[in-house]
């Protein structure tokens, strides 16, 4: 006969390891991807799915209602706040031209002449604007 407690432990450990693996992939993507938008794409994997998996694993292991509610609260916070912060960061990144425009297939925000030709989108934070002066 299979002990239900040990089955729960195995499921929890598998969920925790999956969440940890997503954190590792986020680090890899952060280092290897070319610009801010791609790095954000890599970063949102552990932010949503990884944290959810780890919270479910922790709720299975901890076995107490207070801990479970708090883990649920953390997961809900992540789900609510990840889109907001991602939206703000990506909007500022596009406006400050930290986007590799030569790698974009579709650029619906492109607005004609006011685009850069020399900046490729990976400049340091205080890079001067091209046109102007």
């Amino acid at each position, binding site marked *: 006969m299979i002990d239900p407690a040990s089955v729960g432990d195995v499921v929890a450990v598998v969920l925790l390891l999956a969440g940890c693996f997503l954190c590792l992939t*986020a680090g890899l993507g952060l280092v290897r991807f070319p610009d*801010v938008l791609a790095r954000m794409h890599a*970063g949102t994997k552990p932010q949503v799915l990884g944290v959810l998996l780890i919270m479910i694993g922790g709720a299975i*292991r901890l076995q107490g209602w207070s801990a479970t509610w*708090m883990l649920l609260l953390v997961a809900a916070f992540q789900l609510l706040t990840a889109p907001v912060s991602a939206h703000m960061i990506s909007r500022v990144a596009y406006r400050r031209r*930290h986007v590799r425009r030569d790698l974009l297939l579709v650029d619906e925000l492109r607005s004609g002449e006011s685009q850069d030709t020399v900046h490729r989108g990976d400049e340091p934070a205080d890079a001067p604007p091209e046109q102007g*002066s």
Partner: protein
Amino acid sequence: MTVVFVLAYGMLGGGALLALVRLARGPSLLDRVVATDILLVIISAGLAVYAALQRDPTVVPVLVVVSLLAFVGSVSVARYVGGMLVHSADDGTDVGLPLAAEEQEARQTGEADR
């Protein structure tokens, strides 16, 4: 169980180290914001993994604080960087950053020299 410990903390530590590499190298400020965000998420994941593996629920309230702190930090830095932008008055297109004072000065003196 030791294998699980080594695997979980190893993967979390590897992800945190790679995020630190991006935090140190990242060419723009927003790269660093994204890297700090991921670093805080990995820290909260590590706390949750510790709580789960040790069956120790005392660190769980810290998780709530860390997750809120990550959100507030990244949003405030994004607002700060967005406030440095200049909008053109007529059609609302983004002109970009204002010229730094030293650079403007250098351009003017350069034009005078030419």
